[in-house]
């Protein structure tokens, strides 16, 4: 029998705020999360045009600390974390011995001996267990501290302008993929310039008991700048337009970083062995089994996760994520397709030959470069 406790989704430190805002709440990876506050299209557009405020407290925070923390992460992950400077962050992955992706991660180096590993909510327990096992015998302590952190993101072209008056930190000095301790609205946070929307923006790791006041301060500071609260529905279309992979869609245990076009995160040049090295080295040498492609639909019917991609009417791949793009106004999708088809279609030969089986009818599509959207420089 299932533990009745586990059937109840966990609340974040901001759940009461979302309820007061009238959000539609949904169970996401065991957490009660805001799906949308009103119109997800309006939320999406606000992030592209001004700014959006997100509760991401469901994300897992795992700390790795100690004299050999860097060595432990070098062995446990595919990235070169000992080369990461304190105050910087890196996008990386944790793989199984066979090279399959267990999760994609952002790792922040807080000091020479302290790292913060941010995992997807659905994978936090798996990542924690794998890190514990892989750090075994080393001078490094691994702890799941998810419950000790609220995570608030402010994303969009106005994010820096809204945040600046609330903090003494010089935001110009906080580069993309950097994270440093700072005070925001009088609260101590880890302030990071990271995100999952394709826009400039910040993520604030805060104490749970200060999350509501921080949210309120950001809301007030952004009230004249178009800031709106934004839910997971907008977050998904934002990341899809930005061509960013989502674990469970583009990434999973049967996918290697190379399949996903993210082989660059695997650092074979780092010192020592790491979990998955030999399998991944083989994958790096071999011809790709599939290619992650961007598709733009030519009709209004929307390719969705799991739909078959067709080439001359024959199945050549599977859609991993699809949605109507609010920014582009057409359906967009990411899909794993036959690399041969990707090459042919890329040569401009795809017109009329590429399609997606959208519930029984072949809807024409074309191959387009990823990302679908890139923010104006």
């Amino acid at each position: 029998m299932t533990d009745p406790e586990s059937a109840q989704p966990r609340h974040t430190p901001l759940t009461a705020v979302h309820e007061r805002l009238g959000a539609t709440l949904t169970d996401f990876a065991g957490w009660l999360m805001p799906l949308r506050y009103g119109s997800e299209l309006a939320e999406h557009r606000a992030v592209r045009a001004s700014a959006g405020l997100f509760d991401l407290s469901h994300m897992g925070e795992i700390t790795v600390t100690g004299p050999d923390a860097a060595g432990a992460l070098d062995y446990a992950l595919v990235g070169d974390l000992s080369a990461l400077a304190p105050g910087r962050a890196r996008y990386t992955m944790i793989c199984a011995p066979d090279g399959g992706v267990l999760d994609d991660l952002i790792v922040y180096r807080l000091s020479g001996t302290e790292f913060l590993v941010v995992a997807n909510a659905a994978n936090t327990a798996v990542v924690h267990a794998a890190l514990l096992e892989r750090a075994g015998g080393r001078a490094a302590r691994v702890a799941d501290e998810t419950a000790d952190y609220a995570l608030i993101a402010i994303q969009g072209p106005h994010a820096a302008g809204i945040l600046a008056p609330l903090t003494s930190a010089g935001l110009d000095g906080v580069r993309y993929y950097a994270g440093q301790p700072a005070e925001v609205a009088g609260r101590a946070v880890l302030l990071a310039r990271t995100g999952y929307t394709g826009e400039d923006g910040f993520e604030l790791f805060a104490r749970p008991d200060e999350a509501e006041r921080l949210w309120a301060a950001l809301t007030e500071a952004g009230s004249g700048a178009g800031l709106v609260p934004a839910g997971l529905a907008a977050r998904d279309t934002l990341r899809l337009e930005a061509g960013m992979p989502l674990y469970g869609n583009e990434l999973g245990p049967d996918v290697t970083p190379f399949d996903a076009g993210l082989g660059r995160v695997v650092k074979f040049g780092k010192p020592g062995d790491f979990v998955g090295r030999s399998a991944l080295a083989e994958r790096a040498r071999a011809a790709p089994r599939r290619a992650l492609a961007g598709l733009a639909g030519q009709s209004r019917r929307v390719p969705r996760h799991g739909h078959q991609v067709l080439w001359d009417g024959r199945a050549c791949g599977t859609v991993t994520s699809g949605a109507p793009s609010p920014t582009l106004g057409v359906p967009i999708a990411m899909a794993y397709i036959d690399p041969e088809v990707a090459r042919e279609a890329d040569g401009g030969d795809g017109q009329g030959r590429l399609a997606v089986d959208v519930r029984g009818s072949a809807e024409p599509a074309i191959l387009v470069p990823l990302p679908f959207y890139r923010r104006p420089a």
Partner: protein
Amino acid sequence: MTVPPGLSYTAEHEWVALDGATATVGITDHAQRALGDVVYVSMPAAGTTVTAGEPCGEVESTKSVSDIYSPVDGEVTEINAEIDDDPGLVNADPYGAGWLFRVRLADGADQLPPGMLTPAEYAELTKDTE
């Protein structure tokens, strides 16, 4: 959530307004809320014969797609052309400007088929999910 009086409802979250022998069909406020922002509605063309309980179109939103079931037997006489340009009407005014299509009831009928829900029954059906 609103459930206006004077309309009939289905368990598939359509509403029906009967005027003589012509039924106007749309989706309910509950349905549009559950779907999120509607981006496209495919509807049966005028002249199409539809059958009660059978899918005859679909509503696409950013997150999902769901079938529209015809609540009645008959022939489609008109579709709401405004929806094509502005699918958001389904969200903004599901019982008014967001209506979907009209059906002339088959066999000269001037009553809705049995089994349609009253406003009170439909409100009861959807209350737990609010």
